[in-house]
Each structure stands twice: as C-alpha cells, then as structure tokens.
C-alpha cells in the first residue's frame, strides 16, 4: 500500500470542508496536483497545501492508496466522504461527517470523531478508537434511510441518535450510548457494550433490525413489549464475528448469555427487536 502523509498545520477556527481527502480523489495524481486540491472554509476556497504538509507516495490504484492524516484535525470535516476503496488513518481527533456516504474502504481514527460520522454510508469500515459524536451512522435530515451497509466500531462512547434511520449494516459501540440510539431504524444492527441511555429504538420499524444491549439499559420505552428471556443462537454468530473480525474480544463473554427480547416500537406498529443481556 502506498502512503500519502498529510500533516495538518492550519490555525483557523472556522471548520474546513475537506471532501477531497479521500483515496478516490488522490489516486493517480502528482503531488503538485494534490497540493492544489480544493478545501473550503465557509465560502472561501483554499488549496490543500494551505493547511497540510503533503508528502509520500501516490498509487495508481485506489485500493492500494493509504492516506495518513497527522495533527489536530477536529475542525476538518468530510474526510473520507464518499470514498469507495483504500484506507485512511487519522492519528488524532477529527471533525464532522467523517466517511459520510462512503461506499467502501476503511477509515481508522485513533482519537475521537465529531457528529455525523458514517452518515448514510453504504459500505466499508470505520473504526474510531476514541469517542464519536451525535448522529453516528445516521441519515441526514430529510432522508428516509441512514446507513445502508458497512460497519462502524467505536471503542469509546457515542452521542445522541446513533444509528438514526439505520437500514442495513452494523454499528458497534464498546462504551456508553446517549439517548435515542436507533431512532427510526428500519433494519441493521446496533451492538452496545456500555450502558445505553433511554429512548433507544424510538419509532423503529423493524425489518430484521435489532439493538443488542450488553451493558444494560437506563430505561426502556413503554412502547416496547417484553416477550421472552432466552439464549438466541443467532447472537452467537454475530458475537463470534465481532470477536474474530473486529477485535471486540469482550463479545466472547456473552456467547452463552441469556437475553431479554423486547419488540416494538408499538407506537408506529414496528417489530424492531431489543435484546438486553441478562445480568449473570
């Protein structure tokens, strides 16, 4: 894999829109061309080189291009947006809309990420080692569907409305989850290993979607109905995958755990499922 290094040195307090920082738009270009790629602060155009030191190698194939982003980029938005292949590693924190609408490839954030990460993504893998903000893997305002494929794993906590309008794909949170997780979801899976705050699954329709709560729930909505406590075999298949493919080793502890099954949201005639791991 060829590595292009982008070292952030900008000092602006206005967020930077950096949709061009994606392997798709860098592959096959000369360094001089990459330096001239456009970024925006507000309505002003800038060159990439006005905010980043650029060095390294560029591949001719997007799948073998890695972008390494260094420095404090928490005000840099849209990194990896719409990417289809390749890999991005962000050494620190980063801003909003990371990997939004991405269709493939991999993004790893070693710090934390702001709101709307993975919004409406349809494929690929986002790994956040720190925390994630609000509306992780969700749909944009006015959209009927949020994330429709791919996997997001957050090692820390996540903000509100994570997985809103989730349609397909999987979101895994190893830390705590703020209110309204999976609001309006209509498919897909959310796994939460930390405590899940209230109003999870509000207005969720179902379509095979579920929220698995392995670290407890603050409060269930009254519009979810308890059905049974059992050991769902399908959960073992997911937990095994989480452990083996995504390094979520704590998943293995729940292989033989009983889960309480709730279905709802009855307020909208939904058959979404919420599984809550029984305290052993």
């Amino acid at each position, binding site marked *: 894999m060829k590595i292009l290094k982008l070292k952030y040195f900008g000092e602006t307090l206005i967020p930077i829109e950096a949709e061009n920082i994606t392997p798709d738009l860098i592959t096959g270009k000369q360094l001089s061309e990459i330096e001239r790629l456009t970024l925006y602060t507000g309505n002003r155009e800038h060159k990439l080189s006005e905010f980043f030191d650029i060095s390294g190698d560029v591949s001719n194939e997007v799948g073998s291009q890695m972008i390494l982003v260094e420095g404090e980029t928490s005000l840099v938005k849209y990194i990896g947006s719409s990417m289809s292949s390749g890999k991005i590693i962000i050494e620190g924190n980063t801003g909003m809309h990371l990997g939004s609408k991405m269709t493939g490839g991999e993004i790893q954030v070693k710090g934390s990420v702001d709101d709307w990460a993975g919004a409406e993504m349809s494929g690929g893998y986002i790994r956040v080692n720190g925390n994630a903000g609000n509306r992780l893997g969700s749909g944009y305002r006015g959209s009927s569907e949020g994330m429709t494929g791919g996997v997001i794993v957050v090692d820390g906590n996540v903000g509100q409305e994570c997985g809103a309008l989730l349609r*397909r794909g999987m979101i895994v949170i190893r830390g705590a989850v703020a209110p309204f997780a999976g609001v309006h979801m209509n498919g897909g899976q959310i796994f939460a290993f930390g405590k899940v705050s209230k109003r999870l699954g509000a207005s969720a329709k179902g379509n095979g979607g579920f929220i698995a709560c392995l670290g407890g729930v603050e409060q269930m909505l009254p519009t979810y109905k308890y059905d049974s406590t059992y050991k*769902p075999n399908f959960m073992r298949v997911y937990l095994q995958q989480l452990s083996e493919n995504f390094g979520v080793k704590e998943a293995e502890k729940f292989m033989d755990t009983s889960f309480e099954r709730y279905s709802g949201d009855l307020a909208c005639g939904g058959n979404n499922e919420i599984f809550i791991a029984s305290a052993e």
Partner: protein
Amino acid sequence: MSFNFNGVEIDDTFAEGFTMWGSRIIVTALNRKWANIAAQNMTGFATSVIACDCEAGIEREVPSESTPDHRPGTAIMVFGFSKGKLSGSMLNRIGQCVLTCPTSAIFNGLPQNESDEMLDIGKSLRFFGDGYQVKMRMNDGLGERVRFWRIPVMQGEFLTEELYGAKKAVAGGNFLIMGEEEKSTLEAAERAVEAIHTVPMIITPFPGGLCRSGSKVGSKYAFLKASTNTPFCPTIKHTFKGSNAPEKVNSIIEIVLNGLDESSVRRAMGFGIKAAVEAGGVKKITAVNFGGKLGKFKIGLRESLEAT
C-alpha cells in the same frame, strides 16, 4: 486383467461414476449428541436413489471452533438427480429432521464461490414462521453478504441460512471387498470407510458406509427394477451361472461413495482400497460398472491407488 497390490488381487477395472447435484450443510446443536442426532435423522433413508429421494450421509464432525455459531457441528452432504430434486429433498429433510431437533441450527457448508447454484432452501423454510420469521443479515457492504432466517419455534428459535450451495458432483464411486469370511471382510471394509473419510467432501451413504447387498439393474420379476447382484453373491457362486465370486471368497461388501468432484472420489477410493488391503483377510478387490453406459466418470482402481 488384474494386478497385485500388497499380495491382494485387484481387478484392473473401473467404477462408473455419474453426475448428480450435491450440496453440503452444517448442522450445529447445543452439544455433540444433538448435532449428531439431527444429522443422523436427516441422512436416514438416503442410501441410494434406487428407492430413496436422495443420497445423503455424514461427511464429518465439525469442531465447535470451526462452525459459525461455535457449537459442535456435523457436516452433511446430500445428492440428488437434479437441482429441483435435491432442493426438494433438502427442504423436506431439514424441515422434518433438523428443524424439529432440539437446539439445532443449520448453515451452508458449500461457499458460493465453490458452487454452481445457490438453492433458496432457507428462503422456503422461513414460511414455517407463519409471518413471525425474522430476516437476519450479515456483512452488508463489507465482505460477502450472508442472509439467515430466524424462525420462532416452541423451544426457542431456529436459525437457518437462506441459501445453500450446490454443484454438479460425482456419485457412484465404488469398490467391492472380497474376503474369505464375514468377520475379516467386515473389518477390512470398516477400515476402508475410515480411510475414505480422511478425504474431505466425500460421503459413503450406506449403513456405516457399507453395502452388503449390492444390486443389479432389473430382475426376473417385472415389477422389480433392481435385484440382488447375483454375480457377486458367494452363497450361490456354483449355482448361478456366470458368478464373479472367486473360489475362496465367501463374503463380499460394497462401498459406495459420492463426492463433490472426480479427483476427490478417486483419491478416497484409493485410500479405501489401500486400507482394506492392509487390514488383511481380503482376497480380491473389484468395482462395479456398466461398460460406460451409465455415467461419464470412469474411476479406475489402479488410478485410484496411484492417486493416494
């Protein structure tokens, strides 16, 4: 024509294999006992398409760490004369023998990239859920997409994969072990079956892998399409004109094997013949064929031994 292999006469002939559609599934359960019960039930009454709807057998036991749900599993292979017949047999057998078996779940054992077709058996089975079945998706947008169905049942929930791989496979691999007496011939045949199962993707569909009553096509009775293989019945070797049972042979056991490809069947036959010979007490080994009229695969005994 024959040749000598470790002191045993081997007919220089061939087993005549023919094309069938084959599939492989993995049944898992809470423990080994129930995984095997489900597998044994599913593969019951499936020795030969002469009178059964399909041919099926247990391929191997799969350790927990190698199954999708990390429970003990048993791999089963099913063979049918067409995709439709195979699919129908599998649907009925899974529905009646696996779905009903406590704690069972079922997974595809033949990946899509190794299959000629994917049979939508789980998709049909889901209707048993009467509207309460739940679609389960994995790997959307990342990796190879897999679909399952979760069907609510009285004990809890039954999990089945949606699609099962099937491919054009090879049936009818066989050889006959001819011994001086029943006990040693049986022991040699048992050793042969053990050796055959060291080759992946092979089943021996008869009881314990052995057929003690091989058949020939037709009968003196018009209503019977197959009857005892008179040329190889030692008890009538001097009564039946044209007997193929040698003078010192008083017991013959046939081993029939099916596999997903010709080379696996050939190797498995070779391992089986070798093991039978090494067991001792075997006088001769031959194979059944119809002069090339039945199937397109001519699996020579000499080539089988060379393939091991």
